[in-house]
C-alpha cells in the first residue's frame, strides 16, 4: 500500500476500489475459516504458558478492514491476567484497550473487524486452554457470560428497556444451566440481586430498567455478569457514566465480589485514580500497542515510558497544587498509516538517537516491570518484539 503513505486524506476512486476489493478478498477468506463449525478441536486447544494465568494475550493483532485502509487497532499486544487479580488497562480513547477485550469475547464487528494474528489463551482450569482466536462460535457461546463476562460503560444501553430486570438476569442462568428449574433460577437471581447490594430485591425483580437510577442499573449489570460465577470479569469503563459517590460504591462492590467469587477482573478505564485504588497490575496502551506494564506499584511510583509519565503529570490531583498542568504535545498518529518508528516519538520530549530506528522492543527493567522504550536499552534485557501481521500476505 505504497500510495497510502501520502499525507493527504484524499483517496482517488481507483485507490478506493482497490481497497474495497482487497478488503472483500481478505475478510471473505477469514470468515470462511471461521465458519467451519465442526472444526478439529486440536486447532483451538492449546496449553497455558503459566497455569496461574486466566488469560494470556500473546502478540494479538486485531485489524479493521475499512474503506480508507487497514486500521491496526490492536497490533501485537501481549499481557497476562493472573487468577484472582485485577489488571487495569489504561490509555486514551482509540488506543485499542476496548478492542483487546472485544477480541477476547469475539464480539468484534465482523466482517470488517478481524483478529488476524497472535493467540489469546483462555485457561479452562483443567490443564488445557482454548485459543480464543480460532475458537468456533458454538464453543464461544458457552464461554461468553459463563466463563468470561462483561460489564459495559453505559448501564442504560446495556440493559434491554422492554424486559423486566428479573427476566434479564434469569436469562443468563437459564442459558448456561438449562437443567435448572424456573424456581431455582429465580432464587438464584434474587440471591444475585442481594449480593450486589439491592435492598428491595423482590420489588426490583419486577421493575423495568428506566425505573432505576444509574448506580442501581450498573448493579444490575454486575449481577448479570456474575450470575454464572465467571472466572474473568471484563469491566469496560464501569464507572465513567456514574457520579463520584456512586463510583466509590460500585468499585467497592466489584472489589468485594471479586474476592468472594475468586474471579479476575480486567478493568478498562482512562481514569488513573480508579486504577490505583483497584488494580494489582497495570497495562498502559498507546496507539494499539502496550507501552508499559507492571505492578501498580511499578507504574505509579516508577513510571518509565515517556507516555506514562506524561499521562501521570497531566492529571490534576487533589491536594497537589501546580501552576500549569503538563500536556503531552501533539496528537495520536493516524491509525491507517502508522509510522515505522516508535509511535510516540513525534510527541516525545525525551527522544534520543536510537529512537530514529524501528519500533522499540519490550525491555524488562525489573522482575515485574516491562517497558517499550529505547531509553532503557542498556539497563534491561530485551524480552520480545511486538509483531505486526503483514496484511498483504493474507
Amino acid at each position, binding site marked *: 500500500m505504497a500510495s497510502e503513505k501520502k499525507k493527504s486524506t484524499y483517496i482517488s476512486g481507483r485507490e478506493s476500489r482497490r481497497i474495497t476489493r482487497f478488503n472483500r478478498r481478505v475478510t471473505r477468506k477469514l470468515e470462511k475459516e471461521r465458519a467451519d463449525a465442526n472444526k478439529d478441536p486440536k486447532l483451538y486447544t492449546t496449553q497455558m504458558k503459566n497455569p496461574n494465568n486466566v488469560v494470556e494475550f500473546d502478540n494479538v493483532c486485531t485489524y479493521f478492514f475499512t474503506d480508507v485502509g487497514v486500521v491496526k487497532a490492536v497490533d501485537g499486544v501481549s499481557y497476562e491476567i493472573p487468577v484472582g487479580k485485577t489488571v487495569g488497562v489504561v490509555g*486514551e*480513547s482509540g488506543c485499542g484497550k476496548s478492542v483487546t477485550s472485544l477480541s477476547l469475547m469475539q464480539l468484534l464487528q465482523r466482517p470488517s473487524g478481524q483478529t488476524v494474528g497472535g493467540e489469546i489463551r483462555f485457561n479452562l482450569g483443567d490443564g488445557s486452554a482454548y485459543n480464543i482466536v480460532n475458537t468456533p462460535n458454538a464453543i464461544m457461546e458457552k464461554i461468553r457470560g459463563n466463563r468470561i463476562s462483561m460489564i459495559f460503560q453505559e448501564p442504560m444501553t446495556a440493559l434491554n428497556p422492554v424486559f423486566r430486570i428479573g427476566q434479564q438476569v434469569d436469562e443468563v442462568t437459564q442459558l448456561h444451566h438449562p437443567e435448572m428449574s424456573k424456581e431455582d433460577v429465580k432464587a438464584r437471581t434474587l440471591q444475585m440481586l442481594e449480593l450486589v447490594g439491592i435492598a428491595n430485591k423482590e420489588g426490583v425483580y419486577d421493575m423495568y430498567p428506566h425505573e432505576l*437510577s*444509574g*448506580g*442501581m442499573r450498573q448493579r444490575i449489570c454486575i449481577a448479570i455478569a456474575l450470575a454464572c460465577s465467571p472466572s474473568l470479569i471484563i469491566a469496560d469503563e464501569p464507572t465513567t457514566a456514574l*457520579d*463520584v*459517590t*456512586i*463510583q*466509590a*460504591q460500585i*468499585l*467497592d462492590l466489584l472489589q468485594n465480589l471479586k474476592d468472594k467469587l475468586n474471579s479476575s477482573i480486567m478493568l478498562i478505564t*482512562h*481514569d*488513573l*485514580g*480508579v*486504577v*490505583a*485504588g483497584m488494580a494489582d497490575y497495570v497495562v498502559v496502551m498507546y496507539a494499539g500497542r502496550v507501552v508499559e506494564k507492571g505492578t*501498580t*506499584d511499578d507504574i*505509579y*511510583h516508577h513510571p518509565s515510558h515517556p507516555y506514562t509519565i*506524561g*499521562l*501521570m503529570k*497531566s*492529571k*490534576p*490531583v*487533589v*491536594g497537589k*497544587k*501546580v501552576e*500549569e*498542568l*503538563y*500536556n*503531552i504535545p501533539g*496528537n495520536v498518529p493516524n491509525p491507517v498509516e502508522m509510522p515505522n518508528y516508535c509511535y510516540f516519538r513525534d510527541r516525545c520530549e525525551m527522544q534520543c538517537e536510537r529512537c530514529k530506528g524501528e519500533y522499540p522492543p519490550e525491555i524488562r527493567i525489573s522482575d515485574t516491570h516491562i517497558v517499550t522504550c529505547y531509553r532503557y536499552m542498556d539497563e534491561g534485557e530485551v524480552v520480545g518484539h511486538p509483531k505486526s501481521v503483514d496484511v498483504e500476505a493474507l
Partner: protein
Amino acid sequence: MQEMNNPTALRDEYLLEVNNLVKWFPIKSSFFKRTIGNVKAVDGVSFKIRRGETMGLVGESGCGKSTCGRTILRLQEKTSGEVRLDGQDIFALNKDQLRKLRPRMQIVFQDPYSSLSPRLPIGEIVGEAVREHDIVPPNEFDDYITRVMDVCGLPPYYKDRYPHEFSGGQRQRICIARALALSPDFIVCDEPVSALDVSIQAQIINLLKRLQADFGLTYLFISHDLSVVEHISDTVGVMYLGNMVEYAATEKIFANPLNPYTQALFSAIPIPDPDAHIHRIILEGSIPSPANPPSGCKFHTRCSHCTEVCKYAPPEWLEVEEGHWCACHLYDDADAKARADEAVRKARSGEAAGKAV
C-alpha cells in the same frame, strides 16, 4: 446573608451576584395540563463571583448545577430570585437590552460533538455571532476571526473545515473560540472537559487558564470532576438537590470540608496513588428525586450525622468561619438553633394535628 444582599458596596469587586435563585420545572398532568407538582431543580441558591476569578460548582448529576448555569445566563426564565451581572438585573431587561448584554456572557457546553452545527464551517461557527452583534466592522471581520482562532490554538486554514473533521479536543477549542469571539466578561463552562481524554483535558484546562489571565475573564466552572475544579477554581460551591450546601475558597473547602455531604463527596475522589489509603465515606443509596425532596435538610436520608432536627427543619445558610458558608445543623449558632427547634416543634404539632383529624 445580610452582607450578601448589599449590592452598593460590592459592585466593583463582584462581577456576578446570584441571590436566592429558584428554578422549578412544572410537572403537568397529561390531559388538563394542570400543574401537579414541581421539579425543584434550583431551590434558592446565592453566591457571588469576583471579577477575574473562577468559581467551581460541583455536585452529583441531577443536583441542579447545569440548570443553575443556564438560568444565570437567562437561557431559561427563573421562577424567582435575582441575578446581577455588573449590577444589572438580567431578568429585568427587555428583549433588546438583553440582546445587547448577550455578548458579555457566554457559555461553553459539555459535549463538543453535539454543540457545533455539522453544516457550518468553523469560520462561520466562530464568526456568526460576531457578525450578528457587530463586534468588528465588516472589513476587519476575517482578521478578527483569524486572531481569535489563533488565541485558542486553531490555525487559520481550519476556517473552511467542518466540525466532523476534528477530534474532541479540537472541537472544544472551537467552542471556546466561539465564546471568546464576542469578548465576553463572563463565561459559564458547563463541564467543558468531562467528555475529553486526560491528556486533552490538560490542554483545554491550560487554555482556559491562559485566556483568563490574558483577557481578565470570569468563569463559572461547572463540573463533577473535583480534581479539575480544585485546580482551576478560586472558590468552590457544592450543590445538593437544588441547594448550595457549602461555599468557600478552594483551599479552605478542600482542607476542611464542613458539611457531611461535602466530606463524603471529597472522600470519594479516586487518588492516583496505590499507597493512599484514605477513609472513604461511602454514601448509601442515591440522590432523591428533586420532584419530591425529603423534608428538613434534604441530605438527611443519606447523612451519617442525621439528628431529629435535620428531619424537620431545613438548615440555614450560615457563615461558619470567615468566607466559609455552610448549610448544616451541625454548625448552627444559638439563634439558628432556637429557630430550628421552633420549626421542629411546629412541624411536630402539625403532624399531631393531622393525625388527630
